[in-house]
């Protein structure tokens, strides 16, 4: 095999310019795919990171039916204390879970004593919430950006703060109706202004969970949702499935499922954009396959045509058809390998330059996000394997033709 490889490489070097051009074409294809995959991939993971780490968490558990009615923030679909405790016990025993944060979500009236408007609020334990969505603290543009949210304090959404001319230290009143229909109000001091983010919950205010219980006159804690953060985001799908299966056995008094588990993909519309990026990546890879297939097939067809007499000679002196086939396949393989290696090195270098130049972009209301193009070794390996496999496939037809050539006709070829 090594000797066949040596001859294959020498044959490629016979037409240096052609080999160089074809390898360059493959390299360029690999570079473009690597760039696309790394830039879109980093954009995607940055956006997913923004969604999951600043508001959603990696996944959420609700009472069955809550998500379908989430626009109304139905208090009657909250998880009661026994259910919450049960869930808490399960989550605390799972090694994959980094942290979890119970939330009471409700809608209410928000008054500055001058103006009144509606608000959606999250009642949270600040320490648990910040462990579960660590970027939340960075959204506090004014006030307590260290993440402290004491009882009696509120973080107000930025747009509301601007339109109602609120600043840190101001006093506001929250009035809400609980699930029994009784109305209650409570004063809060504004301790932070929250930057908006795109997506559900991106314009909600935050108060301490015990304040939420006070406003809603809850004697026992009832939670609307539990946001969960995993230690390894890559295990998201597996964990979602595991947890869903585990919780499927939990039934209410009517024997109906008690919980529903959703990961960020079913909670955020950005998932569709992420899917679109994946589809675009797939088509870009398809284009690379076409480039490699056509260029290598073209070169190998030419190589066979130009070397018909040579093929006749080696066949006449007893080279078995399988070895002739291997010789041409190895030529295509070597060409693809050369293109892949050069493309990977070039791609890696360009990505490093791209990162060093710190290109920034805006996403929704978020400005100045710095592009950090990361190429995963697995992506590099996948692209390399695709190119090498396609190189072999592209060489097969010309190689088969060469191996099946009649030595007499080949030797007669002028």
């Amino acid at each position: 095999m090594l000797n066949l490889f040596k001859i294959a490489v020498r044959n490629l070097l016979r037409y240096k310019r052609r080999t160089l051009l074809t390898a360059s074409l493959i390299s360029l294809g690999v570079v473009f795919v690597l760039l696309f995959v790394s830039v879109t991939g980093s954009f995607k993971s940055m956006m997913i990171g923004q969604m999951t780490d600043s508001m959603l968490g990696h996944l959420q558990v609700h009472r069955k039916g809550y998500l379908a009615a989430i626009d109304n923030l139905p208090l009657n679909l909250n998880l009661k204390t026994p259910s919450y405790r049960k869930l808490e016990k399960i989550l605390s025993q799972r090694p994959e879970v980094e942290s979890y944060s119970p939330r009471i979500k409700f809608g209410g009236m928000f008054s500055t004593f001058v103006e009144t408007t509606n608000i959606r609020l999250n009642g949270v334990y600040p320490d648990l919430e910040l462990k579960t969505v660590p970027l939340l603290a960075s959204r506090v543009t004014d006030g307590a950006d260290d993440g402290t949210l004491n009882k009696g304090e509120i973080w107000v959404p930025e747009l509301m703060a601007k339109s109602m001319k609120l600043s840190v230290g101001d006093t506001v009143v929250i009035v809400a109706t609980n699930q029994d229909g009784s109305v209650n109000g409570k004063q809060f001091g504004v301790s932070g202004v929250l930057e908006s983010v795109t997506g559900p919950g991106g314009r909600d205010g935050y108060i301490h969970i015990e304040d939420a219980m006070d406003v809603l006159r809850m004697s026992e804690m009832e939670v609307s949702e539990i946001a969960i953060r995993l230690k390894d985001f890559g295990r998201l799908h597996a964990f979602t499935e595991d947890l869903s299966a585990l919780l499927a056995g939990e039934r209410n008094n009517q024997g109906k499922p008690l919980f529903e588990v959703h990961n960020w993909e079913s909670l955020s519309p950005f998932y569709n954009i992420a899917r679109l990026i994946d589809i675009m990546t797939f088509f870009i890879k398809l284009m690379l396959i076409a480039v490699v297939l056509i260029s290598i097939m073209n070169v190998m067809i030419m190589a066979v045509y130009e070397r018909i007499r040579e093929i006749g000679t080696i066949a006449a002196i007893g080279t078995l058809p399988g070895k002739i086939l291997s010789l041409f396949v190895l030529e295509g393989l070597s060409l693809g390998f050369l293109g892949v290696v050069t493309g990977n090195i070039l791609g890696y270098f360009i990505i490093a330059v791209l990162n060093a130049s710190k290109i920034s972009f805006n996403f929704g209301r978020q400005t100045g996000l710095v592009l950090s193009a990361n190429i995963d070794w697995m992506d590099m390996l996948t692209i390399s394997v695709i190119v090498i496999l396609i190189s072999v496939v592209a060489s097969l037809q010309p190689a088969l033709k060469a191996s099946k050539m009649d030595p007499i006709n080949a030797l007669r070829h002028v």
Partner: protein
Amino acid sequence: MMALVRAENITKIYGAVTARSKEDVTSGAVATRALNAVSFEIEPSSFVSFVGPSGSGKTTLLNLIGCLDKPTEGKLEVAGVDVLHLSMRQSASFRGNNLGFIFQDFNLIPVLTVHENVEYPLLMVQNVPGGQRRERIFAMLEAVGMVDQKDKYPDQLSGGQKQRVAIARALVANPKLVLADEPTANLDHKTAFLVLSFMKKLRDELETTFIFSTHDQKIVGEAEIIYSLEDGELTGKQVKAGKENA
């Protein structure tokens, strides 16, 4: 002594057997009888030549003996093997282990050096181990006087040198029979005689049978047995003095 090559009434017809239409005639599909009921026997260690004008069937006959083609009719045995029923793969294997080829245009592999060209049949066809391979290549290059040129590529050699390399390549695998189709056609007379003398010398040393075709009357005389071919038929056999038993 058992014949190395035994041909009985071998006939080779190219194209369709009968012309069915005018198009068949113009397209060349009409049957061409390249060889017609040719019979002969060649003994081991012979130095045989097939001679005849262009189109007489010399190359066709050599192709049949070399298992590159099959006769339409007749029986052909080479080295005791009925070559008519060999598959493409079996033919290739048979050629690699029993036959050597020398071509009119030398047909050396341009990307390989002289040494590598000679090494090719041992390495790629017979899988001979390294040490043994080096010994045989050196011996063969020495026999054809090309040791000094072993690292050169074919395009750096003269026609005569190329043919000497081709002879070394044909003989290095210890074939029973070497077939040479017009081996001197692209050489001047002085070089042609030199090449033939190399072939003869190696025949004497290795007892390999040589069969070559030529239309050059001056070259023909170098053969010990001469078969004449004309229009696909064997028209005569000349045996040089002292070779009557062949």
